[in-house]
């Protein structure tokens, strides 16, 4: 977790589908100080079905906590897969403009 990035919430690196990731994410979402959570996808070349399922669960958890979930650094093929999987509604994309 790197709360310094984006300044206002924890920063989770996503590498592959894992229960640990989901646990970390849920913990981060439950922390009262957390305003947003950012998932760093920079290292992800491809997302498989399991990874997409984890991301779907992450989106649902964030929605349940009422906190926005940001995606950062997703390459277009990964981002397109997230769109095809219809997970887009659960996420906001970090825009470095």
């Amino acid at each position: 977790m790197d709360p310094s990035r984006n300044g206002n919430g924890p920063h989770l690196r996503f590498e592959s589908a894992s229960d640990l990731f989901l646990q970390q994410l849920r913990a981060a979402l439950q922390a009262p100080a957390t305003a947003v959570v950012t998932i760093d996808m920079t290292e992800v070349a491809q997302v498989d079905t399991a990874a997409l399922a984890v991301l779907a669960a992450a989106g649902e958890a964030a929605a349940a906590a009422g906190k926005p979930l940001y995606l950062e650094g997703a390459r277009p093929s990964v981002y397109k897969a997230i769109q095809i999987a219809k997970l887009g509604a659960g996420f906001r994309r970090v825009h470095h403009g």
Partner: protein
Amino acid sequence: MLEAPVTLAASAVRSQERTGTLSEERQSQLDALVTRARLAAAAFYQFSQEQVDRCVRAMVIKGLEAAQQLAALAVAETKLGVVEDKAIKNMVATEFVYYSIKDERTVGIIREYPERNLKEIAEPIGVVLGVTPITNPTSTVLFKSLLMAKTRNAVIFCPHPLAQRCSNEAARIMYAAALEAGAPEGFICWVDDIKLADTQYLMRHPDVALIDATGGPGVVRAAYSSGKPALGVGAGNVPCYIHRSADLHMAVVDILTSKTFDNGTICASEQTVLVDRPVYDRVIQIFADLGAHVCSPDEVAILERSVVDPESGTMRPTAVGQHATAIARAVGIDVPPSTKLLLAPLTGVGRQHPLSCEKLFPVLGILPIDGAEEAINAAMDVLYFGGVGHTASIFCEEQAVIDRYGEALNAGRIIVNCPSSVGALGGVYNDLTPTFSFGCGTGGGNSTIENVSVRHYLNIKHMAKRTPVPQWFRAPNQIYYNLHALENVRALDTRNVLIVTSQDLDHLGFVEQVRTHLPPHVICHVFNEVEIEPTYAVIARGVEAIQHHRPDHLIAVGGGSVLDAAKAMRLFYAHPDLDFHSLETTFLDPRKRVIQYPKPARDQLTLVAIPTTSGTGSEVTPFAVITDSERGRKVPLYDHSLTPDVAIIDPELVRGLPPGVTADTGLDALTHALEALVSIFASEYTDALAMQAARVVFEELPRACRDGRDLDARAKMHNAACMAGLAFANAFVGVNHALAHSLGSMFKVAHGRANAVLLPYVVRYNAAVPSKFMPFPNVKAYVAHRKYAQFAASMNWGGTDVPSQVEALIAKIFELLHACTLPTSIAALGISRADFEAAIPEIIRAAYDDISIRSNPRMPLITELEAVLREAYDGPRGEKE
């Protein structure tokens, strides 16, 4: 043993109500299945072609290995068909399909058309609902699984409820093979313990992107009525014509092969054979010799009652896929055990003849027919009796008959000299795309009429790069200019010329001037009937003169009217059947125009154009204007074949022009130059000519107007007009000409003068940022204002930036008009404001009909043209005439 990614619990199925509604539990299970498939489709999207092909290959190998096993499962479960034949179907569905798709690109850029600057890019569809039939329950699943993998889609199979065990086993085998090769989890799913309500629910599921329904009309209808994109294929009723020229033995063997294949369960198999009467008995005999039982009339009647439902007129399901002997036994017809087929002689086809319907079992109608025409009509009757758009077959050695048959019948597959069932599957007897889904086109309520394959499971995107159109620069073969250019007439390779001119010019001695330059041996005739604004009647008389005198050269001496007339005379002399009115058909792009001019003959008359005014440029242009006196309108002709072959630009011939005509024609030339300069068709070639022509007009026209005998000024103006002509012959003109044509026509204003009073206002209009740009691929930026400014700067007229340089150009145009004693407003032409205001709508309407408007740099709007006209009427700002 691999488990299905998501299977449905039997308890949920039991709770499913018989009424067709689903329990909440069942719905959530189906939802989970779709979600799984959706995530798999998303994961699959990221696969490379190599990853995809690896999966497909692994699936094919496993499918081939399981071909026999799946065939046996299918027959055991459905009690339809023949194990050996179903095994072949499974092999075709894997090996043959693989052979046809293995090298096909389905990921990323799949096809390129460099000459068209086009690329096709594959986009997967997403989640596909695969509805599969009872008749081909495993082969269809194998086929669709392969295509889904090849196209990176996820599929949920909804098998026929009476074939679900074998269909789902086929899906499981393909999925396991793909998964082992790296395919995403869940990309093949299937519904266990399926009921009709499950399929209906999934058909309407928001996350299902496409329904791919193979089955009977009910399934296809349900798919299409779901409101989703659907590939639906349905019933056939295949007519088969045996023409007297056919190889009869081959025909009968093929039909037996086809109709008995898997006991006739392929919907592309023959249903009614239409046999030319002279060979009918022979065909019947061959059928009998090869194991068909030829039914007696009583037996036909029994079959009609027993294998066809009299209410619906369709086959009874109990007979589908059964062996001929089993059917015979069931209905009480005594046949030998070796019987392959029950052949039912019919007395006609259609609803009144029940056995001419689709029969997915080895009962075949047969009917004698009197020749090809009758056969085609009868085949149509068969197709329209439940098989429109599907398949038809013919055995024939006469290509003309085959072609007529194919053209007449509404069938997606016309199978020639092959068994229609295996033939339609493709890849075995012919080069059709191998498939297990036959599109039946709109006639069958389908979105495609093709053999369904890879392309139907992709969204194929087209990436189109800007493609500038090729341009040209065309000019007469020879242009002779400057003083004494007329001497070149002497060098013409001619024995017989016809001089085309007007009476006035003839009387003024122009004809004599030309004649004296011709060698003495040349026979010279004169046609001097051309008037201002020549009519088609004059052209017709001119053509008669050519026919009478048979010249080898036309020498046109005169202004624009004479030169235009000569161009038209040459055209209509060479092509007397040409429809004058058709040539006025308007066009947007000269390369794509509907009406094409005939190509000039090699021995066509040589046209020599000698202008006696300095303005129209007609001596070098591909345009002519002829008046249609009957309809009271001018007909513009345009084609490069109209361009004269030789232009002679001799200032001696314009020395006597009165100042008014000199001014009018000079301003016409300037308008040609400035409009060609900013035209969307402008090029470096035309820019050079346009700029130089405009420069010369500004510098020399006042001098030529003041002193017509100044031959230096005359020569420069004569050349400038020709250069401007060359520029606009290739770049065209613009809105100034469009408005001037209609204004001049309506108020009888000389063409050059009409151009002149509009020019400064049109320049200001074109120099402004357009409210609408003119679409043209060669135009990369709006440059009209910059080109005006560039020209003004080249003339050293002051101004420090583009707007001030444009204003300098406009001021210089006004100066030129004053210097040539030309009006600077429409009001100054003596037109009352009331008349003018009343005429504005018609002026604009006619201008929009004018081809000139389409090369203007900005797309003129009606309100804008109204404003330009009113500004031109009022005259220069702060100045009234």
